[in-house]
């Protein structure tokens, strides 16, 4: 969340889409209720089903799963066409005014410029800003000269006219020449403050989404055009007649991430929020709800294969040394000359050196690039979730440690995961229940003969439940809150970190013993890892938390800070103290300040809220530096005064020349508004990106609607490029993909309030509330298939089959797509069951994981599988 749970109470308008917080976050949902009761805030819910959140909505739209970019793009179009957007904000706080290079093409045919058909990916060189400074006033001339984005024809003409590229001749005996250095952003960006230039980001965005008319939105999503217009009118009403006071929020969850274009769905939402001037403001923001109590913490601490703690990047083979790595990963500011940019990632070398000192202590020296070579490099290969299971299925990955992670149930394509485990040499599972992964060898349909062939050695470790451990949880609002163990671990169960520590100590012992053996390739990273805990076999989490916060390794001085000195050994008060010279250590720069010398801020429990805005500055601690709303500079206008004086978060104090506020300013404290420093300090431009230049997005600088990999229709925008051109299907015999002739019903998966993932099926109380798996289907489909509520049905996809009971409901309606009268029947299945749990072993128990049905296909940016919006068939069983 850019904002936080409590902050939702400050809003005037809510769009909840791609999430179902009443169902999955009932405690946080109280703030939605609060906003409606206290501020008369309006709630629009968009979802494939009328669910618990929808039951509270002022307006509900039933959308076809996987078509969210179309809806959100339609909103952007509606806001621009009806002049309902925040002009001053858009012009000054985003890259709307920036001019894009000639040769950039919009995807009218489904492809942006730079698509390499053979490689199946984009060369983003044309997705860049033009250099040249202020060009305001030149728009009319540019339009007259026919300037504008490239088209397929103009690109073909240019290619025909250009001389062929020089051939690179490989000289025998010499290595091939290195690839050309990556193109960077131009330092002095061209911009047009009138936003009229045909190649400025605003005009390109306007053109891009002009195609997303209410009719087109309806054809794609199945939402009737008049209903869409009603929703768009209500949502954009906060900017009616130039109003800048009102604020709207967007709340989402994995209903957006779990698609083959999930990252772009979230981007479209963020763009809409920037267009409305809602980011950085109390009651605004783009708010991801996290589905586990500590998934935010896991992500911050390197939950994904290509990031290190604090979102530092994992090195790649081309990073020859530290200097090369830092050059690649430290952005230089790119902005109009007259504007200022904080470019906070310019501190990357400090964060990185401090991280390496926390990891390797004295072994990380200036002379050895802070032990840079200890870190693994990732090459072209992805190591995402589905890639790892794919590698295991292909016999390339030999073993798996599954720690609190039920891989078989999580899927996708559970049978492939089960079969992959059959090929592994070993499997270690640390859990609190016997579950599907640990007992993959007893999955339904497996025979005694099959079992005899499985050679996988399975180790089961008794881990600890959440109430048996202390430590911090980081919630959706980025709050670090310490929790204390409520009960001891039962029986032989052990604390997770004690288990991990004993594995590590054993491995280190082995390396120590065999370090001189020529077969031991590189023992240094293992032998030199710092492990200075009072009890090495079970480190105290207090010590670990303090290590992550970081400390001074030498006496430090900084006149700009108060106090200006910090002694060696002291816990650091914040990341402004981090150094790139090895005099500080810090396990995650974002958490620096969570545990200063005075004690843990994560243990604070003072509920005071002096501003009444739900900031609660002394309850727990929120990263970064206890800021409750990120980018809060944008809550003020150009002069540094709040857009809405009744919701004052931060402001510029003319007398002191500094930013002050009820919240901690997320900004350079002494930057005078006259300097025009952008509020989005993590971007090198300083401003928010409607257009993402160069490489960060693999599938385009603007979002575009692409159909899910399995879809009932061709993409109405460009039927010849229905799916995203950079999304790849997997290639093993277990990766099958269905078509709508055999599997006509678009299916989505989700959770229920009554259950929690795959483990409450072990708890009688939860099972009592919802005892059995089911598939929700429209009454019209049930009538067509002659299925009654409670009938047993067989749901099948190209991958597998799933048996459950039918829930026949009014809450899902058939959809009309592509403007045709023919009906498409969406269905949905909750995820919570499997072959382990209460009722396990009963003859009538045929429970299996629903992810047997879902496809192995991932978003090209975040690598999240497409659990929502795949095709199934349903028959009476």
């Amino acid at each position, binding site marked *: 969340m850019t904002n936080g749970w409590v902050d939702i109470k400050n809003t005037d308008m809510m769009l909840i889409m791609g999430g179902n917080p*009443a*169902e999955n976050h*009932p*405690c946080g*949902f*109280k703030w939605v*209720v*609060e906003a*409606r*009761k206290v501020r*008369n805030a309006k709630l629009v819910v968009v979802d494939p089903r*009328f669910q*618990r*959140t*929808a*039951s*509270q909505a002022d307006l*509900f739209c039933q959308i076809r799963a996987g078509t969210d970019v179309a809806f959100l793009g339609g909103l952007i179009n509606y806001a621009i066409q009806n002049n309902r957007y925040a002009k001053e904000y858009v012009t000054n706080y985003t890259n709307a005014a920036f001019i894009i290079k000639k040769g950039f093409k919009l995807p009218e045919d489904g492809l942006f410029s730079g698509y390499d058909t053979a490689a199946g990916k984009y060369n983003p060189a044309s997705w860049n800003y033009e250099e040249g400074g202020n060009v305001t006033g030149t728009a009319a001339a540019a339009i007259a000269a026919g300037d504008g984005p490239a088209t397929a024809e103009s690109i073909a003409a240019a290619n025909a006219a250009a001389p062929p590229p020089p051939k690179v001749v490989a000289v025998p005996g010499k290595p091939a020449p290195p690839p050309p250095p990556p193109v960077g952003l131009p330092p002095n960006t061209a911009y047009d403050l009138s936003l009229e230039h045909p190649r400025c980001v605003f005009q390109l965005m306007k053109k891009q989404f002009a195609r997303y008319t209410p009719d087109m939105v309806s054809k794609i999503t199945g939402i009737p055009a008049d209903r869409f217009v009603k929703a768009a009118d209500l949502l954009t009403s906060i900017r009616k007649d130039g109003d800048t006071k009102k604020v709207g929020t967007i709340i989402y969850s994995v209903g957006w991430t779990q698609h083959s274009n999930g990252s772009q769905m979230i981007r479209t939402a963020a763009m809409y929020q920037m267009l409305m001037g809602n980011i950085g403001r109390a009651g605004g923001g783009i708010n991801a709800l996290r589905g586990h109590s500590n998934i935010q913490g896991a992500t911050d601490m390197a939950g994904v294969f290509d990031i290190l703690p604090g979102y530092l990047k994992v090195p790649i083979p081309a990073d020859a040394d530290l200097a090369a790595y830092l050059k690649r990963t430290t952005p230089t500011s790119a902005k109009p000359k007259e504007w200022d940019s904080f470019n906070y990632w310019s501190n990357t070398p400090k964060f990185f050196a401090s991280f390496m000192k926390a990891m390797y202590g004295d072994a990380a020296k200036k002379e050895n690039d802070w032990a840079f070579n200890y870190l693994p490099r990732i090459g072209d290969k992805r190591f995402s979730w589905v890639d790892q299971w794919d590698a295991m299925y292909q016999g390339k990955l030999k073993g798996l440690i599954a720690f609190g992670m039920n891989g078989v149930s999580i899927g996708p394509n559970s049978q492939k995961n089960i079969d992959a485990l059959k090929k592994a040499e070993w499997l270690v599972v640390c859990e609190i229940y016997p579950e599907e992964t640990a007992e993959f060898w007893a999955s339904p349909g497996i025979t005694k003969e099959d079992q005899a062939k499985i050679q996988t050695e399975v180790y089961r470790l008794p881990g600890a439940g959440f109430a048996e451990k202390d430590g911090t949880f980081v919630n959706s609002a980025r709050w670090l809150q310490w929790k204390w163990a409520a009960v001891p671990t039962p029986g032989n169960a052990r604390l997770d970190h004690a288990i991990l520590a004993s594995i590590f100590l054993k491995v280190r012992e082995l390396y120590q013993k065999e370090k001189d053996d020529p077969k031991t390739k590189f023992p240094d990273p293992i032998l030199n890892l710092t492990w200075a805990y009072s009890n090495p076999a079970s480190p105290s989490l207090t010590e670990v938390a303090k290590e992550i916060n970081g400390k001074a390794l030498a006496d430090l001085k900084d006149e700009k800070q108060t106090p200006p000195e910090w002694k060696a050994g002291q816990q650091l008060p914040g990341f402004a103290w981090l150094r790139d010279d090895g005099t500080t250590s810090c396990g995650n720069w974002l958490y620096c300040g969570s545990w200063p010398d005075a004690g843990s801020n994560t243990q604070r429990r*003072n*509920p*005071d809220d002096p501003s009444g805005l739900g900031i609660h500055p002394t309850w727990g601690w929120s990263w970064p530096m206890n800021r409750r709303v990120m980018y809060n500079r944008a809550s003020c206008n150009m002069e540094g005064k709040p857009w809405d004086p009744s919701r004052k978060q931060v402001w510029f104090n003319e007398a002191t020349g500094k930013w002050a506020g009820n919240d901690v300013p997320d900004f350079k404290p002494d930057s005078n508004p006259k300097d025009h420093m952008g509020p989005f300090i993590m971007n090198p431009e300083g401003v928010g990106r409607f257009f993402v230049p160069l490489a960060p997005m693999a599938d385009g600088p603007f979002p575009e609607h692409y159909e899910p990999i399995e879809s009932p229709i061709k993409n109405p925008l460009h039927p010849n490029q229905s799916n995203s051109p950079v999304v790849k299907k997997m290639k093993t015999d277990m990766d099958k993909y269905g078509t709508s002739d055999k599997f006509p019903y678009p299916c989505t998966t989700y959770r229920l*309030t*009554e259950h929690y993932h795959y483990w409450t099926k072990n708890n*009688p*109380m939860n*099972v*009592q*509330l*919802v*005892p*059995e798996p*089911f598939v929700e289907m429209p009454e019209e489909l049930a009538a067509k298939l002659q299925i009654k*509520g*409670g009938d047993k049905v067989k749901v099948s996809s190209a991958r597998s089959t799933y048996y459950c*009971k*039918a*829930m*026949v*409901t*009014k*809450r899902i309606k058939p959809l009309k797509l592509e403007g045709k009268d023919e009906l498409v029947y969406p269905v949905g299945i909750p995820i919570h069951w499997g072959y382990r749990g209460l009722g396990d072993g009963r003859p009538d128990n045929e429970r299996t994981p629903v992810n047997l049905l879902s496809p192995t296909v991932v978003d090209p940016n975040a690598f999240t599988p497409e659990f929502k919006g795949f095709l199934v068939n349903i028959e009476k069983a």
Partner: protein
Amino acid sequence: MSNGTLEIKAISGHSGKAPGSGVSRDYDVCKLVDTTTCIGCKACEVACVEWNGYEFRETTFANTYQTMPETAWNFWNLIKFNEMETDSGMQWLMRKDQCMHCEEPGCLIACPADGAIVQYSNGIVDFNQANCIGCQYCVSGCPFNIPKFNAATKKVYKCTLCSDRVGAGLEPACIKSCPTGCLHFGSKEDMKFEAKKRVDQLIANGHNDAGIYNPGDPDPTPGVSSPGSIGGTHVIYVLNDAKHPENYALPADPSVPLFVKLWKGPLKWIGGLGMLAGLAALFGHYVRYGPKPLDEGDEGRRAQ
């Protein structure tokens, strides 16, 4: 409700006022269920079962999100779900069902067992299973279908409004567990005030049929319908459509069944009179005719 002797005056290490300080007064108790903010999360169901220490009971899938069709002897708090299509679109109504704690309780009126059902001055109607004879008359007496018979123990059970918690100055378990603030607890007067405030807001936001379900209340808020003959309840609801309580599985006109009222009212009196008249007739007969003489056969048997 506690009489205030255990009202907290100060709390160590606590910033601000002690919660609840200075609000003690003699009052009856009432639950307010604002169905317009209920998300059907079932936290109240779980809290009820756990506080009262009941075990897991097996349930079956019945084409609904509702846990079971009706409350049970060991499941006193049930959210009722109803899918409805109206002119304004789809609605999914969720309402917490439990004992209404009537001011004139049909169960108590019907019950013949001394001390099996008690009504406290704060409004709570509580069952004392030790005195229950298992006749189930209370079941017939209830207009809300609340008391449930347990065939194993031959006793009847229902929601106690957490009389054990309330007696100790705590709110009922269901109220405590509610995450959205849809459940409120306080004096009936305060709850009516809160309910009215919410209804006014709903009406101002276009829910023209919003209202309070407060059956039988002799002193309802002006403009609030209060059907029925149960003298008011200690549970009241805010409904989006108060004109159609049946959409929420609530009786439009709850009243104690006539035969129960007759049997504990006029019928009992008439019965009593009848019995008295019988005795009087017997006495008259004795006075007039004297004792019945023994006949021969009787004499013979006695001799044996």
